[in-house]
């Protein structure tokens, strides 16, 4: 049986780079919410600087994919794995950017006393990070069932997002002096909700990779 050693090695390399990228973005999201909870300005600045590593990985992945397509002429499942990899790397890069947005909001809040204990936002972050962990496992194992199951958790994230936003809106008239902080907390909430959305996109790409069919798991 003829084996395409070079192609298989490069596909394995693509997987490794994506896993590395996801791990960096997970750390970025975790740290961004920790920096909020502890109002750790230095940590927030680190997140912004370290985003460069995620961007560099995306560029590495893009270059690898272009080389694979040009030199290996992949078709069928190989081609779908490569296209899915390209799309996933784009979603993961966006997740890195969302962590940077959260960090910037933390800088805007600065050292002003927090108007309420930060309890639900870390819960939202944990849920989104858990989704990321599961979806990358689904990608490694080409596990459609896990991909679909993971996408369903997005509803839980959306529910929590709605709850937090309502609470923040209720605070606005009672704490007009804290409007800046309330706005930044709302932005942070929105960014975490978008992390979950991007993870759902990744589930869709995994289904395309395995089945060759485009599905909309947001519907």
């Amino acid at each position, binding site marked *: 049986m*003829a*084996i*395409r050693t070079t192609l298989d090695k490069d596909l394995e390399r693509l997987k490794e780079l994506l896993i590395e990228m996801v791990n960096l973005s997970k750390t970025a999201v975790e740290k961004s919410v920790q920096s909020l909870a502890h109002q750790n300005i230095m940590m927030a600045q680190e997140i912004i600087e370290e985003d460069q590593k995620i961007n560099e990985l995306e560029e590495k992945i893009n270059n690898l994919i272009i080389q694979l397509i040009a030199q290996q002429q992949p078709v*069928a*499942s190989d081609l779908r794995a490569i296209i899915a990899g390209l799309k996933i790397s784009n979603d993961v890069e966006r997740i890195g950017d969302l962590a940077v947005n959260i960090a910037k909001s933390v800088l805007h809040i600065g050292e002003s006393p927090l108007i309420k204990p930060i309890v639900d936002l870390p819960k939202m972050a944990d849920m989104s990070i858990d989704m990321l962990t599961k979806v990358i496992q689904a990608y490694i194992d080409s596990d459609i069932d896990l991909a679909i199951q993971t996408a369903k958790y997005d509803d839980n994230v959306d529910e929590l997002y709605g709850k937090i936003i309502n609470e923040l809106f209720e605070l606005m008239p009672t704490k007009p002096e804290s409007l800046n902080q309330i706005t930044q907390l709302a932005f942070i909430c929105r960014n975490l909700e978008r992390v979950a959305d991007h993870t759902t996109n990744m589930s869709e790409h995994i289904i395309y990779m395995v*089945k*060759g069919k485009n599905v909309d798991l947001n519907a």
Partner: protein
Amino acid sequence: MSLQIIQDNIDIEPTNQKIVYDTKDLNLWYGEEQALKNINFPIYENEVTAIIGPSGCGKSTYIKTLNRMVELVPIVRISGEILYRGKNIFDKAYKEEELRTKVGMVFQKPNPFPKSIYDNIAYGPRIHGIRNKKILDEIVEKSLRGAAIWDEVKDRLHENAYGLSGGQQQRICIARCLAIEPDVILMDEPTSALDPISTLKIEELVQELKQNFSIIIVTHNMQQAARISDRTAFFLSGEIIEYAKTDKMFSNPSDKRTEDYITGRFG
């Protein structure tokens, strides 16, 4: 037209396109050895249909049944039908010469006659009784233009075709086909002996020709099949494993054997 599934992995979508060839329960033996097994699939008008598969899978045997060239092999035995525009080409009443007027063929090795370029093209029409020089001139020019080689040879029509490059000779062979106004053009690995530039020129020509002809091409070059064909049939050990639109075949084949072949996991 309703969806008709003849067998698994033979993908026949509803279409208004006419069928040029309809192969039904075709089996072929060379002596005791069965080379084609229960082949069933339609080939559509004004499309490029590629036939791919590993060496010895039966693809060249199949294409040579379409113009009955395979019957030149003394030990060959055939069962089943091939309907060309609704008529079974194996019927005793069906004349091979009539079929081969309508179904031209281009081979792997360019094989122009040892004659002038002009006489290569005019040969077929002359055999069919055309003697008028003006008409022959028109046919020669039209055929050479149709094969995208007129500009390269118009000033040396009376030079020997052997003086041309391989790629030019192959286009002369295509022009020779066109001169008798076929309906179908069979191509058995038409570019495997050519350089990359000549190959691309032939591929471009195939895309133009399909507007007026139906083209069936056997190729070892899967990238070529992916580039130029509308539908692809994958043959393996004398059987047709999968037949689908080329974009589907190369992005999401239904059969694992097709997947393994086109991804190079076996060959």
